[in-house]
């Protein structure tokens, strides 16, 4: 088992190194990205530019620069920004993590609960009007651009209906740390949570329903039914348990993706200073050290989530062996 872990770790490292090299190369292939020009300031003369280039080690060969950057990122952990010189990358990312995790955890709780309700209800009432309606709404949820939904939410809660009793409690966009105010934290996140959850409620609700309906045609469910169990008991006790395996693996991957910065657009639109927003800013600024850190951070989450899901799958589902 230790060997397995080491091997898996090796694969992860390979993926991460490849990604970092890719990012590095893309950056240096990008026109208008000469970090020296922006570090030096407007109208700097070629001499000043050369001096800045030298002082930041930008005149070294690319492989050396790459190795140095990796050393500063992982070994000494004092890699600093190309845009805000002196700003250390690692603490900035660490500081953004709680925001993203707050967003994703909260949304996950909402979407898991709501998807369970939607999926079970639709499966229970399958082929009725209720089922059709739930599935239609789920599909609509899946089909909206999430950033657009966030904007519509802003429009409604921040402007149009901000003065009504319904949304007058909604605070200005932004994030309130949990340590500052629990209530403030909750208020600042509840709209983004909901917006982010909508897509996943639709997605998971649909998958759950179809899994449940499929499971109910399995032999063991028929046996249970023959034993006289009620439909509700069958769904909740038997069918749901099997269907959850798929959902758990989906959840692992989605959570990894979002926690790794996949919630970028909603963070930007909702003004949450999380990892996604950090990434967005870094990309806007072409701030290579930040891009590097953010992309690797996101990739780690994705790779780890993949691994965990694989392992969970092997443990939960005997068929996967």
């Amino acid at each position: 088992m230790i060997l397995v872990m080491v091997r898996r770790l090796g694969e992860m490292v390979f993926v991460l190194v490849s990604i970092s090299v890719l990012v590095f190369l893309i950056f240096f292939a990008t026109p208008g990205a000469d970090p020296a020009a922006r570090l030096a300031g407007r109208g700097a003369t070629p001499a000043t530019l050369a001096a800045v280039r030298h002082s930041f080690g930008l005149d070294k060969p690319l492989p050396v620069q790459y190795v140095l950057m990796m050393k500063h990122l992982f070994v000494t952990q004092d890699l600093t920004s190309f845009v805000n010189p002196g700003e250390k990358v690692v603490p900035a990312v660490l500081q953004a993590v709680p925001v993203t995790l707050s967003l994703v955890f909260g949304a996950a709780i909402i979407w898991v609960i709501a998807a369970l309700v939607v999926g079970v209800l639709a499966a229970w009432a399958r082929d009725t009007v209720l089922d059709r309606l739930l599935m239609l709404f789920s599909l609509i949820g899946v089909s909206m651009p999430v950033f657009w939904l966030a904007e519509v939410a802003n429009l409604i809660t921040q402007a149009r209906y901000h003065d009504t009793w319904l949304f007058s409690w909604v605070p200005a966009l932004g994030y309130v740390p949990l340590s500052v105010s629990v209530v403030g934290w909750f208020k600042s996140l509840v709209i983004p949570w909901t917006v982010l959850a909508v897509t996943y409620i639709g997605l998971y609700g649909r998958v759950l329903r179809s899994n449940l309906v499929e499971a109910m045609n399995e032999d063991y469910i028929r046996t249970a039914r023959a034993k006289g169990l009620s439909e509700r008991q069958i769904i909740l006790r038997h069918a749901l348990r099997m269907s959850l395996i798929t959902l758990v693996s989906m959840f692992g991957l989605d959570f990894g993706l979002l926690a790794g910065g996949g919630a970028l657009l909603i963070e930007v639109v909702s003004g949450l200073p999380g990892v996604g927003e950090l990434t967005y800013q870094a990309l806007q600024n072409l701030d290579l050290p930040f891009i590097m850190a953010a992309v690797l951070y996101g990739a780690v989450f994705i790779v780890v989530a993949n691994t965990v899901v694989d392992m969970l799958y092997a443990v939960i589902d005997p068929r996967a062996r």
Partner: protein
Amino acid sequence: MSLTSEDGARVAAEPASGPWRAALRKLVQNRTAMAAALVLVLVVLACIAAPLYAKYVAHTDPFGSNLDGQITIGGKSVPVMQPSPTGLGMTPIGPTWRAQYFLGADNQGRDVAARMLYGGRNSLLIATGSTLICLALAGLVGVVAGFSGGIVDTVLARALDVLWAFPVYMLAISLSVVLISHGLKLGPFTLQADSLLIPVIIIGVVYVPYVARPIRGQVISLARSDFVLASRCLGVARRRILLRDIVPNVTTTLIVFAPLMMALNMLTEAALSFLSIGVQPPAASWGTIILDGEGLLYTRPMVALAPGIAIMITVVMLNFLGDGVREAFDPRAKLRVKSDR
């Protein structure tokens, strides 16, 4: 259904029909899917008719700024861009619900409704094009990796792993920063920086692992399947096995993926345009119109609302169609019939 009647008694009475035709028939009989397809056809037709709408209905150039234009509403001449009484800021005209400026104007004084139709063309083109590219690439990579095995498979599978772990938006943004600023030159093949193909390629490429991985898995299991063994046993050449036994089965999977990928790509296109790395102005897509509308969200929300709703409707319909296609084509649907037996 029963397949267990006496041997020899049950030979289908109807004329020979292949699985393709059977699937198509099943799809055509699916009313939801057909209704969705009808809506999609209408959307496509409307977008194709964009120049007609612009010319004969809205009487406007949807790509030209119209900052000092006037239109007549109820006999009164109204400026398209309305200055505020303080002389600070201009507000575009809101929805008139008439032929001209049906959905109002954007911050360049352009007819949003006409731009919606033109934008739909690009959104649909990009979604379709990127889906084709994605499926073609993913099919190729998945088949080559799964069928070759060995080092080729290892290299391709690793490349897919890397691409998979590269956060999609970051990959797309990184690629587009390079491509949109400099275009693409690959030997004799040159892409202008404003080419519509750039978002097509970016979106197509980033989702390759999503399709290539399952395809690879499918090819590996197909290569071990009895009917491939049977072909090998007959001494059929590998290439022929690939073309006759593997590719047709993979194609089904790709067809099932197509509408769902198209839906996903449409959403991705919107997201990239929103980050101003998709379609470049003055051309439009539904995503760029949302971006235009973002700047007017509080004053003229219709500019952002309308394209979002258009995307939503199209994607919902694509998903309905996708469900139908999956039911009609997916072999697993047949497995279910089998287990019902």
